[in-house]
């Protein structure tokens, strides 16, 4: 059964130094407020997993929370580079960043394998690319039925999944809808899960095509309206495209990033 707690309590209980943490949400429903709380609580040596690191991981990387990144596309969508990510890979600032790099198809299948309780997933992918040479988590495998050569990718089983959803009820059952990304797989693949929600409702009315995560698959639910900003929650908030554009010059420079961190994360007690 999920406990309904504050975001600060959820992060304090579920996210520990050295953990492997997956904050998922494919452009939509990115759990920014929870990411900021992880920075605020000064977690260290995290292995962060996410298909699209996005601005949320740029912030965590720049803040020095991250030892290793497992990902498939590290850009600022529609804007350009993630400068804190690049500074870490190119110049080891604020510390060296180990990377484990995949394609989207590979990452999605790694979560599926993790959620399925399997050690690996199989796909047609990576053949002829340079990616398989850079990680031990991609290996060729022969189909036992046809003899065909395919690729296997190692399962992902993070310590914690963190996602944002539209609704939970008072028992901690969660419902999310719209672009649903890999959140269901990330939660089911992980040992613990935190879900921040726009709204806590008395009765969860199932919507067509929504993803439902029963209370017993979630560790903590926190009520954090607007907790996806500058990402969005369909039906509740709009994507703040201007924030993504404005992030570029802030992140480009170490000092301006540090100023942003002091003012917006360490200078605040909760998500605002």
């Amino acid at each position, binding site marked *: 059964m999920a406990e309904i707690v504050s975001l600060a309590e959820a992060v304090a209980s579920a996210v520990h130094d050295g953990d492997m943490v997956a904050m998922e949400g*494919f*452009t*939509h429903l990115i759990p920014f407020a929870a990411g900021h709380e992880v920075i605020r609580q000064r977690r260290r040596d995290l292995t962060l997993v996410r*298909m*699209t690191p996005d601005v949320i991981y740029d912030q965590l990387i720049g803040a020095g929370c991250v030892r290793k990144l497992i*990902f*498939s*596309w*590290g*850009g600022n*969508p*529609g*804007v350009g*580079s*993630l400068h804190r*990510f*690049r500074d870490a*890979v*190119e110049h080891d600032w604020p510390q060296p960043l180990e990377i484990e*790099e*995949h*394609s*989207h*198809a590979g990452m*999605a*299948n790694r*979560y*599926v394998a993790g959620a399925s309780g399997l050690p690996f997933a199989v*796909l*047609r*992918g*990576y*053949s*002829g*690319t*340079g*990616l398989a040479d*850079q990680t031990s988590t991609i290996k060729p495998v022969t189909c036992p039925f046809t003899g*065909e*050569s395919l690729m296997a990718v190692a399962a992902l089983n993070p310590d914690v999944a963190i996602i944002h959803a539209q609704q939970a009820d008072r028992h901690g059952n969660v419902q999310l809808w*719209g*672009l*649903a*990304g*890999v959140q*269901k*797989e990330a939660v089911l693949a992980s040992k613990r899960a935190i879900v921040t929600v726009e709204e806590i409702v008395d009765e969860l009315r199932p919507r067509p*095509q929504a*993803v439902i995560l029963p209370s017993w698959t979630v560790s903590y639910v926190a009520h954090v309206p607007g907790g996806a900003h500058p990402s*969005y929650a*369909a039906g509740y908030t*709009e*994507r703040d*495209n201007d924030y*993504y554009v404005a992030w570029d010059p802030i992140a480009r420079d170490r000092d301006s990033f540090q100023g942003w961190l002091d003012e917006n994360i360490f200078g605040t007690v909760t998500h605002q």
Partner: protein
Amino acid sequence: MSSERSTYTSDEMMTVAAARALTDGASCFVGIGLPSAAANLARATHAPSLVLIYESGAIGAKPDRLPLSIGDGILAETADAVISVPEIFNYWLQPGRIDVGFLGAAQIDKFGNINTTIVGGDYDHPKVRLPGAGGAPEIAASSREVIVIVRQSKRTFVERVEFVTSVGYGDGPGSRERLGLRGKGPQKIITDLGILTPDPRTCEFTMTALFEGVTRDNVIERTGWDIQVAAEPELIGPPTAAELTALRKFDANK
């Protein structure tokens, strides 16, 4: 007429040429940026039944403005179906249901291989760390055909890419078959100078069509390999008034 000619940019010409390459009714897997602009222009002009598929899980998206990101709300709100990310790659792209994969590139070589991973230095400490693969490797492998849209320059058009993120024709003839890639590979590279197509014998990309006002020397100056230009390249007509109006309406709605 002449006043109108002077009023379009080379980027607009490139987007229009890419839109024209899309057939009505095709299913098209689109990346954000230039591919998305071109695919939406095609849908607004000659290809109203073009099926736009975004890797965020929107199938048959019909946005009336260009999304900034691959997962903008407008894509899900206007889609025929909204599905999860594992499903889009496993059920839709992998089995060969996609007619056209539409990709951008940071670096592309004479065999149409794409690099979006690193430039300079080595993998662990690159000079420039690019965003990485995203959906591109499997789009390039499994779409029935691939169209690449990218601005042409010596820096971008190189003899061999430093890192193969997505495979075009690999090392040349026979590579795709040896690698087990099921799609036909890149059929066109559309640039701000014209269109390159692969030589059927060597798999090397050659400039076979030029935009108005572009010379053979322009092409050679802006290509990092010893590029062949067709003896009589096709001349691509300028954007029509209807194409420009539709394209600019998207820009105005940003």
